[in-house]
């Protein structure tokens, strides 16, 4: 990992973690605030369910999701659009629209249940110890505010004594840090004067402005050109390494997962269907859906013609199939799958799978 931390990131005291301890090191050993020594996880979501109420229907966007992120760890949440991965992430900081009904055993950050916080207390978390990066940097930035004003706002909102001047200087510093050329001039520009990649860099600058412990990145590269994607990914990697922040990476792109993540959580139809360390998952998926995803991934050693996309479409979430939600598309499906929903079970090696026949995949 980088030995020379950029001074820009060190204005607030670094968490207990030593800069040298890499991401690959055992996560639990890092950055646990002393007063919460009992809490091993940075973020713990337990039995989360999110329903959307429309005029006619209730859509169960997320059901029974349990998820833990250790300090410094990069967890990827993977799934097709509509699988509930974004909704899961948004529920952490209560960023869902009012129509969403969120239920959970716990949504704990550093041992504090975020649902018990007042709106004002939650605002201290938002953009402070938890930074967010959104998918489309064109619409996620305010078109009538300069980039500088938007980055400086992220700073000033979390200053003990709001000071616009230092916040502005810090905005310039942050933009330089994320690789925006000539930041002193470009802070005065508006989002439409930035390219897509530069806008996403500005988004990342806002997310890391207050040296977060957790970054939630929702499809950070999906809206970008392929060449720019690689640059932004490299930047994300660098920012993560330098801040030592744990990261929840929401994506449908397994290539990104392989490159960045420590651990992978696969979601389908609002539920977690498999979770495993990144190496283990790629080496041997234990859920037919994961297997299907991997089969549809272009690889260097396989001819493109042999790509094998999963047949069928994701289910209608207002009226999901009975039993295992994946059974209509599953090559392993049997009668039992049409009636019994397989529970998510630990299958050893720190892995979980929600398939009746996961052993057949072992």
């Amino acid at each position, binding site marked *: 990992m980088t030995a020379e931390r950029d001074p820009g990131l060190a204005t607030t005291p670094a968490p207990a973690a030593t800069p040298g301890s890499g991401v690959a090191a055992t996560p639990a050993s890092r950055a646990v605030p002393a007063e919460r020594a009992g809490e091993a996880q940075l973020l713990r979501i337990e039995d989360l369910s999110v329903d959307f109420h429309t005029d006619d229907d209730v859509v169960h*966007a997320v059901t029974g999701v349990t998820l833990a992120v250790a300090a410094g760890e990069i967890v990827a949440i993977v799934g097709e659009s509509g*699988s509930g991965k974004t*909704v899961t992430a948004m529920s952490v900081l209560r960023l869902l629209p009012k129509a969403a009904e969120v239920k959970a055993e716990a949504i704990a950050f550093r041992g504090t249940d975020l649902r018990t916080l007042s709106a004002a207390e939650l605002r201290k978390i938002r953009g402070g110890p938890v930074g967010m990066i959104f998918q489309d940097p064109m619409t996620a930035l305010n078109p009538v505010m300069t980039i500088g004003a938007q980055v400086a706002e992220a700073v000033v909102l979390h200053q003990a004594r709001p000071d616009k001047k230092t916040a502005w200087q810090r905005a310039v510093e942050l933009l330089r840090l994320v690789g925006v050329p000539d930041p002193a001039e470009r802070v005065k520009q508006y989002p439409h004067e930035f390219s897509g990649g530069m806008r996403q860099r500005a988004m990342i600058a806002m997310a890391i402005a207050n040296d977060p412990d957790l970054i939630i990145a929702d499809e950070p590269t999906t809206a970008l050109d392929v060449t720019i994607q690689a640059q932004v990914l490299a930047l994300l990697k660098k920012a993560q390494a330098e801040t030592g922040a744990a990261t929840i990476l929401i994506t449908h792109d397994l290539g990104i997962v392989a490159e960045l993540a420590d651990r992978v959580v696969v979601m389908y139809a609002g539920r977690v269907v498999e979770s495993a360390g990144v190496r283990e998952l790629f080496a041997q998926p234990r859920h037919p859906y994961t297997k299907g995803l991997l089969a549809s991934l272009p690889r260097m050693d396989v001819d493109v013609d042999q790509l094998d996309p999963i047949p069928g479409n994701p289910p*209608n979430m*207002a*009226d999901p199939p009975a039993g295992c939600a994946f059974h209509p598309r599953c090559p392993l499906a049997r009668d039992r799958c049409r009636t019994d929903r397989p529970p998510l079970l630990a299958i050893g090696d720190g892995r979980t799978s929600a398939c009746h026949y996961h052993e057949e995949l072992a």
Partner: protein
Amino acid sequence: MTATTVSAPAARTPARAALRRFRKHPAALVSVVFIALVVLAAIFARPLSGHDPNAIDLLSARSGPSGAHLLGTDSTGRDVLSRLLFAGRISLGVGIASAAIAVVIGTVLGSIAGLLGGWVDGLVMRLADVFLSFPSLVVIVVVAGVLGPSVLTMVIAIGLFQWPVCGRIVRGVTLSLREQEFVLASRATGAGPLWLMRKHIIPAALPPVSVVATLAVAQAIALEATLSFLGLGVQPPAASWGNMLTDAQSLTVIRSEPWLWLSPGIAVALTVLAVNFIGDGLRDAVDPRSSS
């Protein structure tokens, strides 16, 4: 956000769904009943009132509400209730006729603009902008000043100033239809523009146009009342809700003969409000996204 498709259960046609949403709008439902009563009262004005609206009776002039004259009499002793009911005919007639003119012009120009596109489209839309940016009431005052006030001039002028809203909607519908295959197919088989209008454009534009037509009726009734109030619309002795208030411009009348101005004023206000509520309910019914 997650893009989850919500498919409507079968056996629910769009029209039925719209009706169901309309029924959820209590103000619109009450308004429908109210407007139905106003229409009936206007139709049966004579048997209901029991008086000739133009019968002058100087001996009982300016008398307050009584058994003989439920809403009192005006400065020449005419029965206010019967004038109110007959005025309803004119108000509703002007409102509906103007809106009809607006809808016809709007549909024709809107579909021409949408079908032909190019500079024709640009010209029609520019024309719509021009009509919208002029205050119709003031322009009608000027026109009535030069041509002399008449109900026909007023109806045409009101309709002429209301077409752009309808025109824009029909143009939008036409443009989106033009993209669709079945219209392209019917063009390929040599279907004429009139056939396209009747078969495709009008059915597709009907729901949103019904909303703007309703709102246009409300606006036209209010405009007619205002013009008649200024003495530039319906001319005495014919009664209109607006010209019944013209006499009330003196403080004495306002103070001591409130029945003269309260009843026609309330009649216009409630009628226009009710028609607007119906339009509002229709909008929610036709386009559920606009409300919640």
